[in-house]
C-alpha cells in the first residue's frame, strides 16, 4: 500500500505521518506538495494536521482550493482511503467530503492534551481491526475542533454508523464540547475518515502512547 502525505503551506504534522509509514510500518510513502494534481499512483491519501494557510478566513477554507484537492476529491469518490487528521479533518469538511462543521472549542481556548477515545464504528478500513468500545489514548492540539452539525446530519451519522470515534464519557472527556462527543466521522462510502485527535503522534510508547498505531495497522491490513 503506497501512501501519499499531502503537504500544504503551514502543514506541521506531515513529518509525523510520514514517520509512521516510512519508519514504523515500513511501507512506501511520499510527501506530495499541494500543487500536484495527480494522485492515481497512491493507494491511500493522508491530509495531515497543521495550520494550512495560517488558518486564515476559516480553518481549511483556503487549502480546500489548493490544486491537489481536486484530485483528492476525485480519488475519494472512487473509494480510495482518504484520512484527514486535525487540520486535515477541517479541510475535508470544507471540501464537502465530510459533513458538519468544526467551530471554536467550547472554552474558546487552544487545547493541547491527551484524550481518551472510544472506538464506535468498526465498519471501516481504519477501524476494522479494533473492537467497538475499545479505548485509545492520544493527543489533541486544536482550537477549532468542536464538531457541530444540524439535527438531520447528526441523525444520519448516527443511523448510518458513521461515527468512528467519540471522546470518552469521563468528566473532561470531551474537552472541546463536540456534539454527541464526536471525535471522528466517516463519509457515506466509509472510505473517508476525518478526526481531530492525532493518532500519528501516538505510535511509539516513548511518545506516551502507541494506541494510534492500531488505526494505521488496520489501514494496511495487519492487526
Amino acid at each position: 500500500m503506497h501512501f501519499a502525505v499531502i503537504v500544504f503551506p503551514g502543514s506541521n504534522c506531515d513529518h509525523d505521518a510520514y514517520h509512521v509509514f516510512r519508519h514504523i510500518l515500513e511501507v512506501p510513502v511520499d510527501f506530495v506538495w499541494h500543487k500536484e494534481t495527480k494522485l492515481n499512483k497512491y493507494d491511500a491519501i493522508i491530509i495531515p494536521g497543521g495550520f494550512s494557510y495560517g488558518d486564515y478566513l476559516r480553518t481549511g477554507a483556503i487549502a480546500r482550493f489548493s490544486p491537489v484537492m481536486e484530485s483528492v476529491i476525485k480519488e475519494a469518490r472512487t473509494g480510495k482511503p482518504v484520512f484527514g487528521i486535525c487540520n486535515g479533518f477541517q479541510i475535508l469538511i470544507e471540501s464537502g467530503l465530510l459533513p458538519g462543521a468544526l467551530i471554536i472549542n467550547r472554552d474558546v481556548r487552544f487545547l493541547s492534551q491527551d484524550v481518551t477515545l472510544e472506538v464506535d464504528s468498526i465498519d471501516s478500513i481504519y477501524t476494522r481491526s479494533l473492537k467497538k468500545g475499545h479505548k485509545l489514548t492520544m493527543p489533541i492540539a486544536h482550537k477549532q475542533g468542536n464538531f457541530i452539525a444540524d439535527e438531520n446530519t447528526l441523525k444520519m451519522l448516527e443511523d448510518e454508523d458513521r461515527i468512528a470515534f467519540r471522546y470518552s464519557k469521563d468528566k473532561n472527556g470531551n474537552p472541546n464540547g463536540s456534539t454527541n462527543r464526536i471525535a471522528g466521522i466517516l463519509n457515506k462510502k466509509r472510505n473517508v475518515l476525518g478526526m481531530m485527535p492525532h493518532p500519528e503522534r501516538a505510535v511509539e510508547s516513548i511518545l506516551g502512547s502507541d494506541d494510534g498505531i492500531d488505526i494505521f495497522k488496520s489501514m494496511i491490513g495487519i492487526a
Partner: protein
Amino acid sequence: MKAKIYISYKEGILDPQGKTVSHALDAIGIKKINSVRMGKYIEMEFNGISKDKASEITDESCRKLLANPNTETYSFEIVEE
C-alpha cells in the same frame, strides 16, 4: 467602489466567542445586553466596473469562499466612495 461584507453565524449555531464576550461585558458592569454574536467584516475594492458587476462578484466570493454555508450567513452592501 467598495463591497462591505458581513458574515455571521447562522441562528442556532453556538458561538462560544460571543458568549465569552457577553460574560466579559457583564463582568465590567455593562448590562442590558441580551446576547452577543461575533462575526467577520470584510472589505473588497473594485475599479472600473458597474455596481451590478461588483455585486455579482461579491456574491460569488461569499458563496464560494468567504462564508461557510453550513454555519454562516452573509450580507453585503456596495458603496461608492
